[in-house]
Structure formats: C-alpha cells, structure tokens
C-alpha cells in the first residue's frame, strides 16, 4: 500500500507540458493628453510600484550633446515648482519609500516604491516633475560634477570599463548607438541651462510616456488619482525627434586593437543583429543561450572547461529598439594568446552555421527561457518595468504574458538560419582589448 502512494507521488511530480508562467492581469487606458496608463492590481502586500517610462534615450541626443538624456535624468530629482531643491527624495523616504531611475539607449525610466497608502503622494511627485520641474544653476553645476564622477567610476576607473565605448564607436558609423549612454564628459560640461528646458519640452510630454502602477491598489481609485494629477498636463506641441533606424550594412570586417589598464586581454566580437521584437531576434537571443548560458553551454564547455583557453566567455545580445549588437566577449587564461581564443570563438560560430543544433539543446534552451521568464516577474517593481517596456516598444503590454510563445516557437532551423544570416565576418567588429603594458 505504501509503495503505491509513492508511485502516485512520483506521477504527480512528473514534468507536465505547457508553461509554468502565471498570467499577470492588468488594465490600461490613455488620457486625452496622450499619457498611457497601465494598472496592475496585486493586493498580497501593502506595497505599490509607480513606474513612468519616457520614450527617450541616448539615441535621441544631439551628437554634440551625448550623455544628455542620462544627465537630464539626474536633473529630474532636483525639484519642481512646488518642491524645493533637495526635497524630492525626502518626500519619498519620509513616506517609507525609495526611488531611482535609469537611462538606456532607448528609454528613461523613473520608479517610486511606496507603501500603498502613499499612492497619491507618488502620483503628485511624478506629475510635478513631468509638468514643471525647476532646475536651477546650482543643481545643474552639481549634477555635472556628479555625472562626470559617475563616468569615471563606471568607465574610466574600471578594468574593461571602456569595452562598450570602444565597440560601439566602431560598430556604428551613422546611427546614434555609436556613443555610450553616459556620453562625452565635455558635452556635459558645455551644455547650457536653456538646453534642459528644450529637452524637457520635446521629450518629457504625456504622449511620450507610459505610467504603470502595480501592487496594492484599487483600480478605480488609482484611475481617479491618475486623472487628478495627470489629466491637466498639456500634451507636448513639438514633433518628437526620433532618429532613423538605418545604419548602412557593413561590407567588411572592422578590426582594431585598444589598450587599457588591465592585466589580461579581452577579445570582443560584435555582430549586427535585428532589433528587439523582430522574429529573428528571438532566435538570436536563444543562440546566445546555446553559446554561453550555463556551464554546459557550448562556448563555456569547450573554451573554459575542456580546452582551458578562457577564464570567462559570454555571448550576449544587446537587444535594442533599432538593430543592436550580439557581443562575444572572452578573457584568456594565463599564457593563452588572444588569437587562439578568437579562433575558438569563430569555431563555435561556424559550428552553429554549419550544423543544426540537437533537439536536446533546443529543449534545454527553451527550459532556460521558461525558468528565466517565470523568475523575471516576481516583484511588483519588475512587473511594472516589464509592462512599461512592452508598451513603450511594442504598444502591447500583454507581451508580459505572451512573449514566451515567441521563444517557444523558435526552431532549430531558425537558429541555424539566423547564425548564417547575421554571424558573418563582414557583419562584425573584432576588438583586441590589450593590457597597456603591451603597447610598445
């Protein structure tokens, strides 16, 4: 009798097919001024997340003002018509909340995490800085210094900190992805006060934003409060600057050597890939997993474990609104020549181009994606960010629930096809990132 129970138990634990993902419910509407709003109610804990995403990133910058979008993000914490300088953060922290923001190539996002009884405070704060931020010259001067220190800390003073900078400026010749988000510190220094007002007028307008509220809310109340604080904010009058997606296709490989204060070299290969959301993009992303996700992945297993050529290897797609890059990055083990490492990277790429991956490998990658997607949206803050992101770039917040199907639909043939289509020598930049000591 006992045995049969165990058998039954085992049956219960057998893998079942179908996705383990649980549906995330939400409701959305658009105000007359164009502000799109998404509400996701989850009353399990008395917390809320407010995320406002503006469709402006470093790619919307003037090439003479690189880093401006990120710099502007800093200034949005300075104060508003009704909030004196230095008080914005205090309102949030005094309410038991926390706040931050982030700038990417394509978007700028701000979030407030608050106890649920402070929803109105959060909406007041966000609406204030959308409607009438006040940025005085003291604030500008201070944040200029802060941002320059941020650049030093994250790029100049970090080993390998300049990798992306050096890669992008060679991969793109026309497209504004050719500069990094943090930009050029001289551009930041030169920026004049009036430019901030112009930037705000063009990009920080309701029709260029999506507001997501997630967590312990009642939808009707939340909606009323959103109306109260955002409905009377005027829509922007200017045409929003959106750069062209085009970057001329590469006709030959770009190859270069750069030197930095590191002890071990790094090899970088950057292939141009389609934009996020493109059918091919999903296959490219899965190809990234095949190559470097987990210790059984092809590159890790062969280059780190078996041949011991590298101490680390990664193959990561940079999925962006416009066509992005797929970056292979490897750091050699002691005494291994960079050339040997590059050859090994090429061999793995060549293998995917030549042979179909196995059924088993495809299943493994799908399982990895399922796990990743299930674990991605476990907090209200992460759900709010995902909803904002899907709306901003695809006008389809429901991708939070359905995007997994795109991954599951990818076939072995798709992976081989994208490998053949994008992973060509003429479509890439190869960078040898060498120790300064070898620069003779």
């Amino acid at each position, binding site marked *: 009798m006992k045995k049969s129970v165990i058998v039954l138990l085992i049956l219960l634990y057998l893998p079942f097919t179908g996705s383990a993902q649980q549906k995330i419910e939400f409701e959305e509407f658009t105000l007359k001024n164009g502000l799109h709003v998404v509400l996701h109610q989850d009353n399990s804990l008395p917390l809320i997340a407010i995320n406002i995403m503006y469709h402006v990133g470093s790619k919307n910058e003037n090439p003479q003002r690189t880093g401006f979008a990120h710099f502007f993000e800093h200034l949005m914490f300075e104060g508003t018509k009704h909030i004196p300088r230095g008080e914005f953060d205090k309102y949030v922290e005094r309410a038991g909340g926390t706040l931050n923001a982030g700038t990417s190539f394509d978007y700028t996002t701000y979030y407030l995490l608050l106890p649920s009884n402070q929803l109105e405070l959060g909406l007041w704060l966000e609406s204030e800085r959308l409607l009438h931020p006040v940025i005085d010259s003291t604030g500008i001067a201070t944040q200029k210094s802060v941002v320059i220190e941020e650049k030093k*800390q994250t790029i100049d003073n970090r080993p390998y900190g300049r990798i992306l900078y050096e890669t992008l400026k060679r991969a793109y010749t026309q497209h504004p992805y050719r500069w990094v988000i943090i930009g050029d510190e001289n551009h930041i220094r030169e920026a004049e006060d009036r430019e901030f007002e112009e930037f705000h007028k063009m990009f920080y307008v309701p029709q260029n934003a999506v507001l997501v509220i997630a967590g312990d809310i009642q939808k009707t109340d939340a909606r009323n409060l959103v109306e109260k604080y955002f409905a009377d904010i005027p829509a922007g009058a200017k045409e929003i600057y959106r750069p062209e997606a085009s970057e001329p296709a590469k006709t030959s490989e770009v190859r270069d050597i750069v030197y930095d204060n590191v002890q071990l070299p790094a090899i970088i290969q950057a292939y141009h890939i389609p934009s996020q959301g493109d059918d091919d993009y999903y296959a490219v992303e899965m190809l990234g997993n095949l190559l470097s996700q987990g210790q059984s992945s092809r590159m890790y297993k062969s280059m780190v474990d078996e041949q011991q050529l590298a101490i680390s290897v990664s193959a990561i797609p940079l999925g962006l609104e416009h066509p992005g890059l797929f970056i292979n990055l490897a750091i050699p083990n002691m005494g291994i020549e960079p050339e040997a490492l590059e050859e090994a990277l090429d061999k793995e790429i060549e293998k995917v181009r030549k042979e179909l991956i196995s059924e088993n490998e495809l299943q493994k990658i799908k399982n990895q994606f399922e796990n990743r997607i299930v674990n991605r949206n476990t907090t209200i803050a992460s759900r709010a960010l995902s909803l904002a992101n899907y709306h901003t770039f695809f006008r389809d917040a429901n991708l939070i629930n359905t995007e997994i199907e795109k991954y599951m639909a990818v076939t072995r043939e798709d992976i081989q096809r994208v490998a053949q289509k994008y992973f060509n020598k003429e479509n890439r930049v190869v960078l040898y990132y060498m120790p300064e000591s070898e620069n003779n």
Partner: protein
Amino acid sequence: MKNLFIIILSCLVFATNTQAQTDRSKAPEPGPAPTIQMGSYQTFTTKNGIKVIVVENRKVPVVSFQISLDKDPVLEGDKTGYIELAGDLMRSGTLSRSKAQIDEEIDFIGASLSTFSSGVFGSALKKHQNKLLEIMTDVLMNPTFPEEELEKSRTQQISSLANVPSNANAIASNVSQKLRYGDGHPYSEITTEETLKNIQREDLVNYYNTYFKPNIAYLIIVGDINTREAKKLVKRYFGKWQKGEVPRHIYPKPEQPESNRVALAERKGAVQSVVTVTYPVDLQPGAPDAIKASVMNSILGGGIFSGRLIQNLREDKGWTYGAGSNLSTDRLVGSWRARTEVRNSVTDSTVTEILKEMQMLRESPVNTEDLELTKSFMNGSFARSLESPRVIASYAYNVERYKLPKDYYTTYLEKLSAVSVQDVQEMANKYLKPENAYIVVAGNKDEVMPTLAKFSKTGDVELYDAFGRVIEQSDLPTGLTVTDVLEKYFKALGGKDKASGVEDVKIDLTASIQGQNLRITLMNKAPNMSYNEVSMNGNPVMVQYFDGEKGGISQMGSKMPVSDEMAKDMAFQAAVFPELAFSDYGIDPKLTGVEQIGSKKAYAIEYQLPSGSKSIAYYDVESGLKLRSVTFVNTPQGPVEQSMDFENYKEVDGIKFPYTIVQPMGPMKLQAEVQNISINSGLDKASFSMP
C-alpha cells in the same frame, strides 16, 4: 457594454476634475497606514540533525533549497583559498557524475545550482524539483574533487587574480580586510597566487570530510511547497547524509587601532580614489544595540539618499557619484565602514568630511525630523523586503541560528519606532570612532599620498599592495632614475672612465668556515671571461668559469652540467662591472625603491638576467657604493635567493673595490677578506678554463 460603462465613468471622473482644480501646491496626505504582516515559516529537525526551515510562497511555481553550514570560520594560513575552492569544486564531479554531466543535467532543466564552502544552493521550477534535488544531494554527499578540476580552477583563479591590481575596489577591500581584522584572524585572509599554489587536493577533501555534516546544517526551503511535502522530500533526499563530529575554533577579537592609521594602495593611472574609513566593532546579531545602531548608521549613510554622507559629498560638493556607510553585525566580530569613490584632487578633503560627519553625529543630537525620516525609510525597507520569500527565510534563519527571540522580526517595527534622539547619539558615541579608524585609500599614489599623512597620528602613510601586503617604505626622490644611481656609483668608485679601462682583474680572498680555511680566487677579463675558484686546505672544492663562449662548473671534482640558460647569465656576469654591460645584453634595469641594508639606506635596482631570473642590486644612498647584490635563481623547487654584501671599499690604482665580501650560507655567514687585487696584469685567456 463593459467598454461603454468605462467610457461613461471616465467622462464623469474627468468632469469632476475639471471642476475642482487640483491643488498641487502641497503634498497630498497619506491614507491610513497599512499593517505589515510578516509571512510565516515552519521548522523541523531531521533524524540526522538537519534543521529545516520552510517558507511557503505560491506566487510563482518555483522552489529553492539551500544548505547552510553553521560552523566557525577556519584559518587557512599559507593555503588561503582552499576552503573556497573546496566549495566551488563540489559541483565538479561526484561518484556517479562528471562535471560535464552535472552541468548538462542542471542546465537542461533551466535550474541553477551553486556550491559554496558553507553550503549548497539550488533553485528550479516546481516541475523540476525532484531532478534538482537528485543532483543537489549527489554533489552534497558524493563529491570527488577531481585533481584535474583542481588544477583547472587553480589556473583560472590565478589568471583572474592578475586583474586585481587594476581594480581599485578590489584593492581597497583587500587592504581594509587585512587591516580591520589583523593577521591570524580568518576574516583577514586573502587569496594570492602564492597561497593558491600551496593548495593540494587533500586539503579540499579534508575540509569537506570535516565540515559537511548534517548535524551543523540548516536546510532552507522556499517557494511553491508546503511543510508536509518538504518533510517527505527531505527524508527521501537528505536522509542518508551521515552525521559527524565537527571541530570548533575560537579566535582573539580584533581591536580598533589606538589612533588613526592611514593606508594607501596604488592603482596605477587611477582617476578616482576609493576612500574607505573602517574598523572592527563588537556587535552581535540581535544585540540590544543592533537596531538603534543601525538607525544611527542609516542617518549617516546607510542606503538612504537623504543620508548625510551622500548629501554632503554628492549633492553638496559634487565630488562623487555615491557614498555610504555600513555597519555589520557578526558573531565573531562586526565591522563599520564608510566608502566612496572621488576624484583624485579631493581625496584628502573627502577623508576630512567623512571624519567630520562622524564627529558631528557624536557631538550633536540629530533633529527629530531627520530621525523620523530615517525610521520611516527603514520601516518601508523592511516592509518591501517581505515581498521576497527568500528574505523571510533569511530572517527565520537568523532567528534560529543566532538564537534570537522568536518575535525578533515581528516586533522589529515596534523596536524601530521606539529609537530616540538620545539613542542615536549614544550609538554614535559607541560605534563611530573617528579617532580609532583605518583610513584606506586605493588610488593614484603620486597624486594623493602627500595629502594623506595629516590623518595619521604618526604622520606615516603605510603602503600596501593590491592584496593587502605591506610594502616596505621607499622614499625615492622624485625624478631620480637608474642612470642617476649608476652614475653616482661609478663616480664613487673613481669614475666611469677608470672602470671601463679595467681590462682584467684578479682578486685573492681568504675566509674561514667551521674551522676550515678557504682561499678564493676571482678573475675577470673583458669583455666576458670569468674564473672563480674556491679551495679548501689547498684542494679546489669549487671551480666555475666562462671562457667567452662556453662555461663550466665543477664541485668537489665532479663536473656539473651548464644549461644554455645558465651560460647566458654567466656571460653577462663575467663582465668586470656588470652595470656597464646592461645595454649589451638588452637588460632594462628599474629603480624600485629605497630599502634598509643593515644600518644604511640603499636604492634598489632590479633587473632580469638573460635567463629571466630576477636580480636586485642595492646602492648606498649616501656614498653611492654597491652594498648588496641578490639573485633569485630559478630551481625546480622555486626561486632560491643568493645574496652577497660588499663592505670595506678600498682604492686600487684609482678604483675602489670592496675588501670584505659577505655571503649568507643558511644560518651562517661566509665572510671573505681580500688579500690582494691586481688590475690589468694581462691575464692569459687560457686561465679562463677548467684547470
């Protein structure tokens, strides 16, 4: 129909809004504060002694298992790093699975599995939980620590360590760790290439066999699972894990320094300094002071944007992107540290400001508004942390492991709200020590070093390398070069022209060792011939020569092989004055510092012999004369140091030669006295061969 309703509703709402203009001038009032409920957990203990904590949370179909060993830290000494390696390598092979098989099986189910020196963590979708447990318990109970995996990891770790000197954060953290806990404490140990090379497979196996026992283990299960199911799984998968006696270790408590000490570690080319102010504190987890002290630390710089350090250094001065402080509790010894990264030119001003903020919090009571803000922020952080079931599990783990009252966390908010202005000042005086701190800077030595001496009571700035090892102080005058030192040396000898004019030299010396009389003859002839002979009681015991093309060695009458490498070095060393032959052999000498040689200060010039062996020569700062030469000869057992001291210089035909040469031989010293020196006596080429 539903849509229509929404449209009507929204029109109504819109209408109300247009009628009553929103008052934006004041912050809206909050609603009633919500009650914060902490998720619950359950515990049970298995027959083999595992203490199990279960936190059920069914939001997502994910479950995680963590084994955590409650053991005392272990001192690793000259094998530092072996404990971490033992942890890492647990998932590199078991009795029934190779590393590749483990990797493949874990990746196939999209799971994660990590092993540490103090436990194992695995997480997977619910539907893969049994497969995960099967592999996880296999690595937990049957690891084999394959020799080749150890070699692989060792090489990788040594490679990775190569980048530490470029990483200012890693440097600052190494030096802080070393100073805060002091030698002989397990928290101060830092893995280096040397310690990694000392590790053997046996060390890993012994560690595993000693400490991976169920009777000191906690198993923390979190996620889509209830206690009933957990009990069954634990019995099935962890039931066979065998108990064992585990040793305890006690260590002396590290003390705060008696006065401020300043430590600098160089990060070449740095454009920012990583500034840390730190010291050990005696603060146990759950101690009565813990919550009060953490409020005090938050006001200063604990994760809050309104914190004084970030407001001062970033928002007021614009010196940094971030600044903060951290107070950590620990059963052995806790720590406090403030940390920021600032541009080079404000490094010392930053230290001043940090010390000032510490002092201010000690001297002046905080205003109620600041205190209330901080308490609200901490209240909110605690509430937000409860969103993660793993955090709830970690609270449960703390309660069990540190024997805290069961309601420690459920009453946390009450205790937080009771913290007063007086409490904060009391805590500041107890835990902020602006006069008993280590001030650690990792950055651009040339630019910042002179500005830091003022913070140390003795005026000393101690120098450390990237791994927290003391660097003997050298006070090299700025701008001094190798050429300067060598020119001074030749001038002291009697002039470079004189030295270059020496075609040959023969030196006879005598020495005695253990009652035996030795005669030593040293001959050199330009450009590269040499002959050295040592004879005891008239019999040659050692002969070494180089005839300009090939060399030979004979000891006690038997010939020793001379490798090509050795021959290259012999050729160079055969020069009458090797300093004059540097460029002929492509040797690039470097001036590395000033060191103490006996009672004298000497400039150290380091260079590589043609074979690659390292050699250092020391030149008296005052007289310019060479005091010592050291060569590190590579042998299969590692580099062996051969050193020679030169004393008692006397002039012969206008050039000075040392009349006493001292060579340490193990614990003894061989002291040789010159009896005669003849210069340019026309030594025959034939003398430079085996007699």
